[in-house]
C-alpha cells in the first residue's frame, strides 16, 4: 500500500484551522461558555468538532463498509435491515416452574430470544438446600439443582428455534448448567448442532467482578472457561460458548475504557489458550461474543461500541492471523446500565433505559436487554418487564433508526471520540500485557484495586455533584410514588422436596462413579465438559459437581480490600 490517504487535503484543512481559531476567539469575546467538559470516562469534550479532529482518518482503512474490516460500521452488511437485534429480556426467579411461566409470557409478547439468569446458589455451585443457600435460593435468578430443573425451565419452549442465553456468570456454574442444557436438548431429540445461544462463562466474573464464598483460583476458572469453548467448537458450533462480560465489569465500577480493555484482554487470553491447545483460530473465533453496558453518556457509549469493533477486528487479523472475516467481527449483547437506575422516582428509569438502549442500537448491538424500571428496588414484575420489552419494540418499529447502518458514522464528533477511546483502550491493554495478561492481572489483585478505585471515584463524583443523577442529587421529591414490589416465590422448600426425591430415585452408584470421573478429569488435562454432558444425565446436582471442582482445584480469596 502506498502513502496513507487522508479524508481532507492539506489546503482545505489549513483553511478550516484558520477559521476555527477565529471562531474560538469569538466565543471568548462574546462570553460564551468555554469551561472544560469531560465525558463520563474523563475524555475532554470540545464545544464543536470539525474535520480537524478526524484529519488523520483514512476512510477505507479506518472505517470501511458494514460487514467488512475493520467492522467499525457494523458486523453485517445491511445491519438491522437484514436482521433486527434480538430482544432478549433477562428473566429468572424462584423455582424453574415459575420462571417458565415468565418465559412463555415474554415470548408471547414478542420477545425474540430468552435470557436466563440463575440464582445466587446456582451461580456459586450450591444446591438450594445447602445451609449457605437458605436466604438466597430463587433470588437474582432461577434455582437449578439438576437436569430435571432444566427440563422444567424450558418446558413448552422450542429451543431448537429460540436462541437462549444462559447467564451462567462464572465457569464453575457454566460447566454444570450448560451441560444440563445440552443434555436436556439431547433428551428432546435436538441435535447440538442446531442449538443457538450463548453462555456467559467468563472467568473474571467469579474472581473479580461478583465475589462470593468458594471462588476458584483464576487459573482453574480460566481452564473451565476454555474447556467449554473447545467443547462447543467440536460439538455445538452454533453456540457462543463465552460472553466476555464487560457489562458486569462496568457495573462493578469500571470506566468505559476499562470495560472494553478488560473484556478484550480476557478474550485475547482465551484465543491464546485455544491456539495453544491446537484449535485453529478460525474454528472458534467467530463464536466468541461480548457483552457491554449502555451507560448514560450517550455519545461515548456509541463511540465505545465502534472502537471495540475496530480494535478487535485488527487484533484478530494482525495478531492472531484469522483468515475468515467472521472471525474478526466483534458481536455483542447490550444491557442498559443497572447501576444507573435509581430507587428514587423509579418511573424515571423507563426514560433512562430508553436513551441507553438507543445508544446500543446506534452503536450496532446484536441483542439488547432493557432494564426494568423497578430493578433498583426488586426483581422485575410482569408489568415492568413488559414495559422494558415494549421500549425495545418502540425502538424497532417506530423510531426508524434501523434503516441505515451506523447512522452516526462520519460525524466529526463520533469519529473523533471513537479514535480517542480506541487510543485509551489500547494503552490500557498494553499495560495489562506488561503485567503478563489478564489471568495474571486478576491473580495479582491488580484488577480488583483498579476497579474499586474507579467505583469509589464515581461515587465521589456523584456526591460532589460533578455527575448529576436526577432524583438522587438533584430534582429530589420528598414523597415517592410507590410501585409494586416483586415477591420471590417459595423456592427452598420446592427445591428441597425435589432433591430428596431425586436422591432416592437415581442410581447413586452411577452418581458416585461419574463424580469420581469428574475428579480424575480435574487432575488431568482432559476436557471437563466432554465428561459433564453425560454426567449430568445421572441427575448429579450442581452442588455435588462444584464441591468436587472446589476440592480438586482449591478455592481462592480475591484480594478486594
Amino acid at each position, binding site marked *: 500500500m502506498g502513502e496513507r490517504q487522508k479524508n481532507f487535503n492539506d489546503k482545505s484543512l489549513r483553511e478550516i484551522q484558520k477559521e476555527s481559531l477565529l471562531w474560538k476567539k469569538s466565543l471568548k469575546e462574546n462570553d460564551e461558555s468555554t469551561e472544560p467538559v469531560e465525558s463520563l470516562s474523563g475524555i475532554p469534550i470540545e464545544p464543536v468538532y470539525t474535520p480537524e479532529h478526524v484529519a488523520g482518518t483514512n476512510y477505507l482503512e479506518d472505517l470501511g463498509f458494514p460487514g467488512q474490516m475493520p467492522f467499525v460500521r457494523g458486523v453485517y452488511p445491511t445491519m438491522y435491515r437484514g436482521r433486527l437485534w434480538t430482544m432478549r429480556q433477562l428473566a429468572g426467579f424462584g423455582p424453574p416452574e415459575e420462571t417458565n411461566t415468565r418465559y412463555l409470557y415474554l415470548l408471547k409478547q414478542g420477545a425474540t430470544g430468552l435470557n436466563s439468569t440463575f440464582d*445466587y*446458589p446456582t*451461580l*456459586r455451585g*450450591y444446591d438450594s438446600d445447602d*445451609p*449457605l*443457600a*437458605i*436466604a*438466597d435460593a430463587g*433470588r*437474582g435468578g432461577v434455582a437449578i439443582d439438576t437436569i430435571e430443573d432444566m427440563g422444567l425451565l424450558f418446558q413448552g419452549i422450542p429451543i431448537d428455534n429460540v436462541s437462549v442465553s444462559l447467564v451462567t456468570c462464572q465457569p464453575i456454574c457454566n460447566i454444570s448448567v450448560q451441560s444440563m442444557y445440552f443434555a436436556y436438548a439431547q433428551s428432546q431429540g435436538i441435535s447440538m448442532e442446531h442449538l443457538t445461544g450463548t453462555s456467559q462463562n467468563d472467568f473474571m466474573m467469579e474472581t473479580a467482578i*461478583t*465475589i*462470593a*464464598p468458594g471462588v476458584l483460583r483464576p487459573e482453574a476458572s480460566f481452564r473451565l472457561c476454555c474447556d467449554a469453548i473447545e467443547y462447543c467448537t467440536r460439538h455445538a458450533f452454533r453456540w457462543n460458548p463465552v460472553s466476555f462480560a464487560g457489562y458486569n465489569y462496568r*457495573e*462493578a*465500577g469500571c470506566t468505559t475504557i476499562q470495560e472494553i480493555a478488560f473484556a478484550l484482554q480476557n478474550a485475547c487470553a482465551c484465543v491464546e489458550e485455544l491456539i495453544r491447545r491446537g484449535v485453529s483460530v478460525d474454528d472458534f473465533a467467530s463464536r466468541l461474543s461480548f457483552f457491554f453496558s449502555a451507560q448514560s453518556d450517550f455519545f461515548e457509549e456509541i463511540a465505545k461500541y465502534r472502537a471495540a469493533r475496530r480494535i478487535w477486528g485488527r487484533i484478530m487479523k494482525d495478531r492472531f492471523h484469522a483468515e475468515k472475516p467472521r472471525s474478526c467481527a466483534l458481536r455483542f449483547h447490550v444491557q442498559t446500565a443497572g*447501576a444507573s437506575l*435509581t*430507587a*428514587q422516582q423509579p418511573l424515571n428509569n423507563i426514560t433512562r433505559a430508553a436513551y441507553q438502549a438507543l445508544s446500543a442500537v446506534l452503536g450496532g448491538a446484536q441483542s439488547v436487554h432493557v432494564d426494568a424500571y423497578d430493578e*433498583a*428496588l*426488586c*426483581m422485575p414484575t410482569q408489568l415492568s418487564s413488559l414495559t422494558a420489552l415494549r421500549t425495545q419494540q418502540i425502538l424497532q418499529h417506530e423510531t426508524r433508526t434501523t434503516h441505515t447502518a451506523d447512522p452516526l458514522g462520519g460525524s466529526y464528533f463520533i469519529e473523533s471520540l471513537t479514535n480517542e477511546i480506541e487510543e485509551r483502550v489500547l494503552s490500557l491493554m498494553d499495560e495489562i500485557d506488561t503485567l503478563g495478561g489478564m489471568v495474571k492481572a486478576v491473580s495479582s489483585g491488580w484488577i480488583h484495586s483498579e476497579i*474499586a478505585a474507579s*467505583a*469509589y471515584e464515581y*461515587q*465521589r463524583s456523584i*456526591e460532589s455533584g460533578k455527575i448529576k*443523577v436526577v*432524583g*438522587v*442529587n438533584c430534582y429530589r421529591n420528598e414523597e*415517592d410514588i*410507590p410501585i409494586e*414490589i416483586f415477591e*420471590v416465590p417459595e423456592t427452598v422448600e420446592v427445591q428441597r422436596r425435589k432433591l430428596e426425591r431425586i436422591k432416592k430415585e437415581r442410581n447413586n452408584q452411577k452418581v458416585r462413579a461419574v463424580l469420581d470421573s469428574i475428579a480424575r478429569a480435574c487432575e488431568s488435562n482432559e476436557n471437563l465438559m466432554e465428561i459433564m454432558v453425560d454426567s449430568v444425565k445421572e441427575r448429579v446436582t450442581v452442588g455435588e459437581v462444584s464441591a468436587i471442582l472446589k476440592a480438586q482445584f482449591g478455592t481462592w*480469596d480475591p484480594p*478486594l*480490600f
Partner: protein
Amino acid sequence: MRERIRILIARLGLDAHWRGSIIVAKALRDAGMEVIYLGNKMPEAIVEVALQEDVDIIGLSSLSGNHNILAPQVIEILKQKGENTLPVILGGIIPQRDIPKLKEKGITEIFGPGSSLKSIIDFILSKNSFD
C-alpha cells in the same frame, strides 16, 4: 473510648455484589475509621468476628433480597450472646416497605440505593458519640 471507631463490614449470605460495600469501606477508612472487611458470611460468623474484634458497629450489605431473613438473624444471635447495644446498620437494595420491620427487629439504620457516603459517615459518628 479508643481513638478510632472500629467497624466490621460484611456481605450477607451469597450476595455477590461488592461495589457498594467496598466503596463504603474505603470512605469510612478515609474518614479515619478502622475497617475490618469480612466479605460474605452467614450471621453466626459475622457475630463471632464482631465480638472477637470488639467492634463499635457492624455494617451489613445486601443487594440480593436476602436481607429480610439474614439481617434480623444477626441481631438475634448478638442478643443470644448477651450483646444488646451494638449498633447494626444495613445498606443495599432494601425496599421502603421492609424498613419498618427491619428496624423493629433491631437494625439501627438502613441506607438504601442513592444514600450518600456522607450520610453514612455522619450517622456512624453520631452513634459513636452518643454511646
